[in-house]
């Protein structure tokens, strides 16, 4: 999926940066997400309400992220019913596979940001941590990285959902009009 962008020989940080953007901008990713979105929509009971649709869309987005980012893991794990056990189990397993396991959650923000150490900046960072799902107790550089990934993913989600909504509404409008015309004709 992300093979092209991640096979660069530069430093790991540059690799991560490149991944954050180019990963979500490719058309392949968008198609994958659209498919997942449709599946998720199908799975929701019709007439269940907009909240279920939104949850389905977010889960599909997190799935497309493949659990490589903190927020995606948080979304996916948040949806599971048996939360506690599965959280620890799946979270630990995934994390050990991908990154270094963090034994204790670091002190939020303060420990890692001496330069942006203004009170305003720290407040903003905390707000940002609340906005991005699952990133409250994250240090500043990680939080910023997650935020970048999240923003790119959100943009793709909005694009896909808008297209889907337009297409579906156009189709339904058409069908309705055609149906009326037909009934009139008949």
């Amino acid at each position, binding site marked *: 999926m992300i093979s092209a962008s991640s096979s660069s020989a530069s430093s790991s*940080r540059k690799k991560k*940066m490149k991944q*954050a*953007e180019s990963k979500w901008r*490719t*058309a*392949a990713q968008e*198609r994958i997400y*659209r*498919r997942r979105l*449709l599946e998720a*929509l*199908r799975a929701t009971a*019709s*007439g*269940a309400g*907009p*909240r*279920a*649709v939104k949850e389905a*869309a*977010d889960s599909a987005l997190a799935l497309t992220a493949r659990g490589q980012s903190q927020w995606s893991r948080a979304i996916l794990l948040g949806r599971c019913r048996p939360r506690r056990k599965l959280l620890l189990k799946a979270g630990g397993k995934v994390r050990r596979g991908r990154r270094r396991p963090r034994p204790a959650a670091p002190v939020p923000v303060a420990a*890692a940001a*001496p*330069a*942006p150490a203004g009170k305003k*900046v720290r407040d*903003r*960072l905390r707000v*940002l941590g609340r*906005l*991005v799902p699952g990133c409250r107790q994250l240090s*500043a*550089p990680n939080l*910023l990285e997650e*935020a*970048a990934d*999240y*923003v*790119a993913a*959100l*943009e793709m989600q*909005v694009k896909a*959902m*808008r*297209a*889907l*909504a337009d*297409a*579906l*509404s*156009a*189709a*339904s409008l*058409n*069908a309705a*009009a*055609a*149906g009326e015309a*037909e009934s009139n004709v008949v």
Partner: protein
Amino acid sequence: MEPGGSSGVGSGNSGTYTPEIAESLRFEEEIQSLIHQSFDGSSAAGGSFTALLGLPANQAVELLHHPGPGEPPASAASSSPTAGDLWRLRLGEHHAATDALRLPFGGSSTFVERAARFSVFATDDSPASSSGGGLSPGLKAEPPDSDSPPTLPAPAGRPRRPSKRKECEKSKAKAVAKKSKSAEENTSAAKPAAEENTSGDKLPYVHVRARRGQATDSHSLAERARREKINARMKLLQDLVPGCSKITGTALVLDEIINHVQSLQRQVEFLSMKLAAVNPRIDFSGLDHILSAECGPLAVGSGCGGGASGTAMWASDTAASTGGIRRMPPPQQIWHLDLVHPQQSSTVWENNGAAHPHFLLSPAISLVGYDPAGSVPLNSNQLKMEL
């Protein structure tokens, strides 16, 4: 300053400045003419006298200390119009300039004196007067202030050749124990550029220099590295969020980012409401087998080729199966038409004739649970127009 045509290569240091100023101007013209004439290739690299003549003092110094393959003549030529300014900028460093110039040109002391005087007189009058008198003794007796030559080229040449100058500067700076005030501010100014280089390129030297009065312990160094990481991530975010590149200041940028994230989330909510409104009228059973069929052909095509390969598959499908099973990726197709390939869609419609609109439409119609048999031609026209 009078533009002068005064003759006489004046070697006498009279009290008045006008002949010297005129001479300085003439000297500059000489330099410029020399540059434009003979400065095409590696004359700078050769380190010849005429080549050095063509350079302003600081660049000559740099070349002398670090004879790399040609301080590019382009840069020298570009700096020549500003040679006059550069002369003026070298307030405190004319000593070192003349000192450096002295090194290869043991015999041409007259030129050196002249150059020194011009650098002096290009600056303010008052320091020039005092230093002009003391210049000639200062020439020989000047202690080799090896710090200022590296710092000389540093601020001027920084935008052009960071890596080379950094090497030169670091090699010099490591040797010197004491730093003067001007050297300090130069190095502190050049240090961020140098640090950028350490984090960016792979240079042989990885010495990190601390400013004067700052501890060189691991803490501050690690702190600085961490800060750089954070700044790099912030820059990435700034690029991602539209309209953030103009804003300076971390707090405001973060504000913008937060606003953008909130607006995106609100859009998602709004769109989900819209989808929920459309959903009840959708027959998902129809979507079911369409999607399951779609997964196969879709795995083959890539993003841009999706449309083209899709059409090929439709053609084969029409040949293989009847209209009963619709093996189209219909929502995909609609989306492609919407966003990615509007032109391609029209050509596709043209090429495949009646069969294609049928396929295109059937999923849409099946989505709303309609019997496609009767209403195909009518709907095809309508959809074509809309999409």
